[in-house]
């Protein structure tokens, strides 16, 4: 069961810690981990097509979505990120044949587990974006950014250095 995201005027309330609020113009940091062959290429296409999307995402290139170890997600959420977006090739299209199938299983379990221990599920998002889907990448980033803006700042289990 998910708690409803609170709508507050002029402020953003953290979905996990209702005590924490941020100004309405608060900007989240989103860690984007993209596979080299599909999603990174797709994001490049977004660029070449000059399709605009929110600037909150910071992109890391990995060879394949299967390179993404769940602790990338955990570590991101523990440091600067307010949300994580991981993107790979569509099922069946993996450059490395089967990488994204393995990744998909890990992602589901990680997402559910993090949700179970108290992270809003929208903080951890996944997408399949092919090299040809420049517009889709922009849409995905826009959606994730919007989702996370609603969730407010993340303070759970952040490393002490950041406080």
């Amino acid at each position, binding site marked *: 069961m998910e708690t409803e995201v609170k709508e507050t005027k002029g402020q953003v309330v953290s979905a996990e810690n209702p005590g924490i609020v941020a100004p309405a113009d608060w900007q989240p940091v989103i860690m984007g981990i993209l596979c080299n062959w599909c999603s990174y290429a797709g994001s490049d296409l977004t660029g070449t097509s000059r399709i605009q999307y929110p600037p909150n995402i910071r992109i890391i290139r990995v060879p394949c979505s299967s390179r993404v170890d769940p602790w990338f997600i*955990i570590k991101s959420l523990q440091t600067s990120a307010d949300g994580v977006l991981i993107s790979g090739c569509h099922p069946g299209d993996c450059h490395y044949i089967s990488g994204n199938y393995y990744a*998909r299983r890990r992602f*589901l379990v990680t997402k559910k587990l993090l949700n179970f221990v108290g992270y809003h599920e929208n903080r951890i998002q996944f997408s399949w974006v092919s090299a040809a889907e420049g517009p889709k990448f922009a849409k995905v980033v826009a959606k994730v950014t919007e989702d996370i803006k609603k969730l407010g700042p993340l303070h759970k289990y952040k490393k002490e250095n950041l406080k």
Partner: protein
Amino acid sequence: MDYTKQIQEIASKLFAEEKIDIFIGYRQNAFDDNQVPILVTVPADVPNLIFTDKSVLNLTNYLKFEHTRNKRVGIVVKGCDSRALNMLLTESQVKRENLYVIGINCTGVLNEKGEKAQNCLECVMPDAVVYDEMIGTPSGKKEYSVNVDVKELAAKGLVERGEYFQEIFENCIRCNACRHSCPLCYCTKCCIDQESAVLYNGSNTPSSAFHALMTWSLHLAGRCVDCRNCEKACPSHLPLHLLHKQNEMVIYENFQQHLAGMEKDDRGAFYKYSMKDPDDFIM
């Protein structure tokens, strides 16, 4: 459930036939009704062996230590323990030919309060799945049910659930007993302790505990057999099973009803895949 006699007989026989160098079983604790592991190396110690419904620990944990390495080992395993053994066999940590396995068709063990333990109530496979010799009557595979605690917590709101887990991570003292008592945590050096990895979180802060426990539970996802050695070992009495049972539930419901260690050569849910795996959570 009292198989003391049978186990003693088998152990004596094994020693007499020189089939084993070491026998891992349970022994009565001197001063209370708990049982502790005993690593029998001489036949004279065989009478100390015991097996009742207080034989709670998962003895396969001892297969990862230097005392049993490359030795011929006799071991007593209950249903859940045998699944752990299956995992160890699959992951090449022990050699089957070195083992003489006494499988127990378990009827459930008791917790400290003398009640049937929760994991036994929810046990899917009380019978040993790996054995050379079987004791007791098999009762067959049981219906899987979602852990009651997980169900209860999942029904709560996000914030409330978060606060509950915050307590867990705050009360963790990072002694790593959970890891050491887990038969499937046999890594040469745990990733959480590797100073080379920038992962390293040596401190005992909630954030470090969170990181360590999350990593740990994800490494056991699809492998954990729910023996609850970790929980029994935890000096802070943390309900660690919540993490494992949550993962188990997600895996069971989404990945072809996968349960760890039921078959040999099943490496766990993360080491295989299906085209039919859920895709709806991905944009």
